[in-house]
């Protein structure tokens, strides 16, 4: 059975265990119809020109876990940022793991979407925010919505600063065979509130896993949200990440995406600015090799005046790896005094590595500052010579220069322990031994 057919028929099985009278169920049913009409995207869709899902869709994925899997903390500790105290929401094969999690309702809510979707006390928030900014005409988002059941739920009330970061981790054990995961998360940060979130998808054993995730993030007036995505998965794990951000006036949302692994990764990152003096930052470092594929597809909707957006994506591609960067900036005719900057710099380390980079600017206002730049290059030969005259062998010197090229993206990482961790990951990835003990 084709995956599309399988999804459609599985929906009935899902309905067995859900409350059909809930308004969320109407959303699910409508979304399923959208998915049924649109189907999976193909390379004929402009937005998917350089990324093909065809091969991945041929796998015979399980849609629901057949059994409950358990994992021991010692086996997965390294995937947590364990150096610091944090809230944790952990899922194993799509099922919440109370043992590995550390949730809270003290001051803020860090818990499960399944609880939020069903319990009366969350009704108001769910009605106001759930599936409000996720694209209703996008097939993969629609597919996720129709099966939306579990994921992380974060609610930070007005003027509250979350006292520690939140880690959201999705493990896939391989015990379900080839597996399709569709986590759905909702993050609501009220006026003047602040939160830091680290998100990770991690496969633990050999099996084909495809994750189609949707996260909606709302930042109310003057809110501050730092969101970090760590993508360093096994080479048989693929991820389609759909993240939708809506911001109100004076808010500040930063999304950093570190793509160092996986088989195929597609990051759909959409920002909508619904107020003035909003700052939106999107940064990314991609370091891949072999036959890995990472596609960043960003969209910033500037629909109000006096806002800013900053995009800085660095890519380093080795072997036969493929990178895609498609950055769209839309500036509405009323969005005067918009400052929108976009930068995408790439280094191809091998002849067979590929990068497709495409900035798209649609500007309908006349008093704006918008810039975009993309570069594709090799390493600076003079710099390489300089390092080699200091006795550093060519391979290591190349690693050091590549590290230097990517490194400045880390400056804006606001969690020091995370910055150190990513720094080490980059160094290891590039074969640089910088020794952080000095």
């Amino acid at each position, binding site marked *: 059975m084709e995956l599309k057919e399988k999804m459609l028929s599985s929906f009935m099985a899902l309905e067995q265990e859900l409350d059909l009278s809930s308004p969320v169920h109407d959303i699910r049913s409508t979304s399923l119809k959208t998915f049924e009409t649109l189907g999976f995207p193909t390379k004929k869709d402009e937005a998917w020109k350089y990324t093909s899902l065809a091969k991945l869709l041929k796998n015979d994925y399980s849609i629901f876990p057949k059994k409950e899997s358990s994992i021991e903390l010692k086996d997965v500790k390294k995937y947590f940022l364990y150096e610091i105290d944090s809230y944790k929401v952990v899922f194993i094969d799509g099922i919440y793991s109370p043992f590995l999690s550390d949730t809270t309702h003290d001051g803020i809510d860090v818990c499960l979407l399944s609880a939020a979707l069903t319990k009366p006390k969350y009704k108001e928030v769910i009605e106001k925010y759930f599936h409000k900014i996720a694209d209703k005409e996008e097939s993969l988002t629609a597919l996720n919505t129709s099966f939306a059941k579990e994921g992380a739920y974060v609610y930070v009330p007005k003027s509250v600063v979350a006292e520690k970061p939140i880690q959201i981790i999705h493990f896939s054990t391989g015990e379900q065979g080839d597996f399709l995961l569709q986590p759905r998360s909702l993050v609501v940060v009220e006026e003047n509130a602040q939160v830091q979130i680290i998100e990770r998808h991690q496969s633990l054993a050999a099996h084909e896993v495809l994750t189609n995730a949707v996260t909606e993030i709302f930042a109310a007036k003057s809110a501050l949200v730092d969101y970090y995505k760590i993508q360093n998965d096994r080479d048989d794990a693929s991820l389609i990440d759909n993240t939708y951000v809506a911001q109100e006036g004076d808010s500040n949302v930063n999304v950093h995406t570190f793509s160092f692994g996986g088989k195929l990764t597609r990051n759909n990152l959409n920002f909508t600015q619904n107020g003035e003096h909003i700052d939106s930052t999107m940064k990314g470092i991609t370091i891949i090799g072999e036959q890995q594929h990472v596609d960043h597809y960003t969209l910033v909707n500037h629909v109000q005046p006096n806002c800013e957006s900053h995009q800085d994506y660095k890519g380093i591609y080795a072997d036969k790896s493929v990178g895609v960067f498609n950055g769209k900036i839309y500036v509405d005719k009323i969005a005067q005094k918009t400052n929108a900057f976009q930068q995408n710099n790439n280094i191809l380390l091998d002849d067979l590595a590929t990068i497709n980079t495409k900035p798209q600017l649609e500007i309908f206002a006349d008093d704006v500052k918008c810039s975009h730049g993309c570069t594709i290059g090799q390493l600076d030969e003079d710099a390489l010579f300089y390092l*080699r*005259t200091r006795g550093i*062998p060519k391979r290591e010197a190349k690693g050091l220069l590549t*590290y230097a090229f*990517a*490194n400045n993206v880390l400056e804006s990482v606001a969690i020091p322990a995370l910055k150190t961790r990513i720094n080490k990951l980059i160094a290891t990835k590039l074969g640089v031994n910088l020794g952080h003990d000095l």
Partner: protein
Amino acid sequence: MLTIKDLHASVEEKEILKGINLQVNPGEVHAIMGPNGSGKSTLSTVIAGHEDYEVTKGSISFDGEDLEELDAEQRAHKGIFLSFQYPVEIPGVTVTNFIKTAINALRKAKGLEDMPAKDMLKSIREKAAMLEIDSKFLSRSLNEGFSGGEKKRNEIFQLAMLEPKLAILDETDSGLDIDALKIVADGVNKLKSKDNAVVLITHYQRLLDYIVPDFVHVLYNGRIVKSGTKELAHELEAKGYDWIKQELA
């Protein structure tokens, strides 16, 4: 130590060095002077082993070994150090981490273990103090946003840490004010010994007041056209390079 015989070198098919002969022995300080475009920097770059420069004729040997087949890093492992006229900026790599990487690369080439962190720190502190380098400077990204003087001082700091047999200092005095020049020159003088050698490449005589050369060579149009002692440098300063050009005409 360094023996250069009838060295011809080209870059992009253009011949820059047209038959250089030079002998540098342990314990000696040589100054190579010359007008702009005479081939001074090319000579230092060729000795250090830049791949874009092709040796078309002649030879360079170091401690009796022909350098032709050796890469830049292998030459560094043998004990050749080049202080750059324009050091390269490397964001994200601190001065300390860079020097640590370089020292351990040299040690690895010699079959030694990494230097223990404690010894490394001690050595870094000593050498930094000698060159009056602030400890804050050591945690900055290599050459990024450094002033001209800071870059040069950092080059000499690397020289002090790496302790090469042969140090080639390419226009080390440019960009330095007189105080910084004295500190840098003092550093080089302290590092001098009977076992190592220094080649100073400079346009001006100024540096030679502080690092006194045993021999002065004038490079012009890809050849050494005159050699002498430090008095030659004074003569050049007084008469200018036109004097050499006229003499040759």
